[in-house]
């Protein structure tokens, strides 16, 4: 048996959309559990008094990264069959900066805004309206943006291949950075605790 299961006929491809829903349920459930259906909780990351966004993202990355690394080393997971987005340096730098600005202005990212909509946040519904408008805008501007969007391509590129460091060494490095980050997060949360707004009664 080899993973990805659906690409090796262990699981039928007819199940694809059901799997998409099921994995989405797991993701949405955990995002809401963590408090990420609240823009205030998410935005707190950028004022340092609650670093939950960093903690959740980095714990998730370390968990999945370790699993992928170990299971590919044992031969169970064929990494060659795993979908990976190509690296386009400048579009990803500019896109990341714009998305970061949108995150702190809008209070959500796409996944968390869906969770917030499902739990009744009116601001998240406006945010989703903005997502739809933004997709329309990007589509309309695409003919003039395409040249930049497809520039500085490095193909499908991993950190370990690009810098010619062993895969396992990068895994260890990311774990070390995450652990250092978790320690740092606790320090800054204490330092910036005074920024936390007093809980107000529901509107």
């Amino acid at each position, binding site marked *: 048996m080899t993973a990805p299961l659906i690409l090796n006929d262990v699981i039928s491809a007819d199940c*694809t959309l059901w*799997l*998409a*829903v099921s*994995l*989405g*349920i797991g*993701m*949405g459930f*955990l*995002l*809401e*559990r*963590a408090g990420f259906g609240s823009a*205030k909780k998410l*935005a707190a990351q950028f*004022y340092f008094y609650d670093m939950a966004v960093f903690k*959740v*993202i980095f*714990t998730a*990355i370390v*968990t*999945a*990264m370790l*699993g992928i690394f170990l299971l590919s080393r044992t031969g169970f997971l064929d990494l060659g069959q*795993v979908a990976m*987005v190509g690296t386009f340096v400048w579009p*990803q730098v*500019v*896109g*990341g900066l*714009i*998305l*970061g600005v*949108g*995150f*702190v*202005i*809008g*209070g959500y*990212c*796409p996944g*968390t805004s*869906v969770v917030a909509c*499902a739990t*009744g*946040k*009116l601001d*998240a519904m406006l945010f989703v309206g*903005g*997502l*739809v408008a*933004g*997709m*329309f805008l990007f589509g309309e501007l695409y003919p003039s943006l395409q040249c930049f969007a497809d520039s500085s391509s*490095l193909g499908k590129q991993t*950190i370990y291949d690009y810098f010619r460091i062993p895969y396992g060494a*990068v895994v260890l490095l*990311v774990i070390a950075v995450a652990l250092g980050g978790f320690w740092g997060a606790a320090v800054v949360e204490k330092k910036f605790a005074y920024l936390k*707004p007093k809980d107000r009664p529901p509107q």
Partner: protein
Amino acid sequence: MTKEQKRYMNPYWAGFGLGLVLLSSYLITGRGLGASGAFASFVSWVMSNIAPDHIAGNGFFEKYLAPERAAHPLKDYLVFQVIGIALGGLVSGVIAGRVRFSIDRGPQAANAARLALAFAGGILMSVGAQLARGCTSGQALSGGALLNLGSWIFMICVFVGAYLTAYLVRRQWL
């Protein structure tokens, strides 16, 4: 936080759970988690119905309408993933007693300003995610776990962009 609202889950446990969901996604389907693409599929489908001539030859809309991608633009993997995200969020919210109509904002912010900024943020989010070929879930989280070079460049830039802007919109949140 009122009495009937349960406290949020410990972020490390939530992150561990999310990591297992992401790992399962790679092991079962060979792809990561995602969200923003669903909105691109939706908009492309709307455009193909109201202005098919206008979008003809536009590589963006045509990518999301391509029959190789999905039999119908809305029978797309990420559209279904987003439906699941909403369901999962709703279930967790109901269990915790956190489902009610509200506007989430800091104590000093006006509702109208918050709603306007939410809309503006959504627009920026879509443009950024399309340029970067993924959002926080599709790029930062899913690509991050694969040690995808572009995903890490993207993730660092997301934090840089947000921290650089945070001071300007502090009245919305603090």
